[in-house]
């Protein structure tokens, strides 16, 4: 389904966009936010905001990338406020450490996604858009509202952070690590 099929302001087209893009947006936010409920809230709120602004959407920007932009911004705001809530929680406990994560959960939790959740949201979103959704630099720039040069910087930063967390030999520059690095084809959406 091409992006050109979407008509700004048309409710039926927005419904189609929702059905096509919601799972992708939700998975992107799941890689940024640890809490599935928070990911769903942010995804739903993003579509509410997109629905209100649907008549102002311009077909020059891919619709799914446009919704991703709204959703990532919401996730960033959520993580920022989560830090403040965490600080408040620590203060309430008077500095005593909170309950730690269940080791059983750690064992079954995907470590790559867990690593993505632990790095800043913008580089994490760039990694997911590039290596999961298959966006090229231009589409990632549209989705994150930054320049293409910044996209390259964010991808490099994300690779360094993931390498530090996962394995010393993990690298985005490895030829076998991310085969999509070999070609810059755009195949946004599945």
């Amino acid at each position, binding site marked *: 389904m091409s992006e050109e099929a979407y008509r700004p302001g048309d409710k039926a087209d*927005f419904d189609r966009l929702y059905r096509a893009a919601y799972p992708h947006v939700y998975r992107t936010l799941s890689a940024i936010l640890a809490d*599935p409920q928070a990911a769903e809230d942010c995804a739903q709120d993003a579509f509410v905001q997109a*629905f209100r602004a649907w008549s102002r959407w311009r077909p020059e920007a891919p619709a799914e990338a446009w919704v991703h932009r709204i959703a990532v911004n919401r996730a960033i705001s959520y993580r920022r406020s989560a830090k403040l809530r965490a600080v408040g929680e620590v203060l309430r406990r008077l500095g005593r450490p909170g309950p730690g994560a269940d080791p059983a959960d750690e064992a079954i939790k995907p470590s790559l996604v867990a690593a993505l959740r632990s790095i800043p949201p913008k580089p994490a979103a760039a990694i997911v858009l590039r290596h999961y959704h298959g966006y090229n630099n231009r589409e990632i720039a549209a989705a994150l509202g930054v320049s293409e040069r910044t996209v390259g910087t964010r991808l490099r930063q994300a690779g360094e952070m993931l390498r530090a967390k996962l394995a010393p030999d993990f690298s985005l520059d490895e030829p076998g690590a991310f085969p*999509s690095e070999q070609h810059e084809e755009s195949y946004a959406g599945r």
Partner: protein
Amino acid sequence: MEERLRRELDAVQPMFSSPRYLSTNRRPAALRFAPAALAAAVLGILALTAYAGSPNPRVWTEHVFAVVHPAKASPTPNEASPRPQPSPTEDRHETPEPTETAEPRESPEPHESPEPNQSPEPSGGGETGSGGSGSDGSHSGSDGSSSGESSPEPTPTSGDH
């Protein structure tokens, strides 16, 4: 690694609930501007209160009316007028001078008017007629104006020619 990422994220299934945007009421444009209109109304009330010096809407109305119709609203003299005190003859040709001195067209002030036909001087009982004529000196240029219908200048300083 890319396959690992795809595998891990594909395992994440969204919770399929009804889209929240369907239950969003798109407020009409009038309601969207309601808060701004309310704020403008409150500011307007505060401005009028500050201007009029009173929160009473009647006072606002009076102030606005005084600004819009200054002549009708107040018969008080225009103190800003730079015109000198004119003689009564000049007054007849022009609009009534809204000065404190008596205007020729208007009824004379009883306590200052030496009208012979008007009320007599309260001090002198027999001066009803002569009192008026004896007070020519106080007539300020009212030679021809002693017909009785117009009052001479009550103040000795005004209109001396």
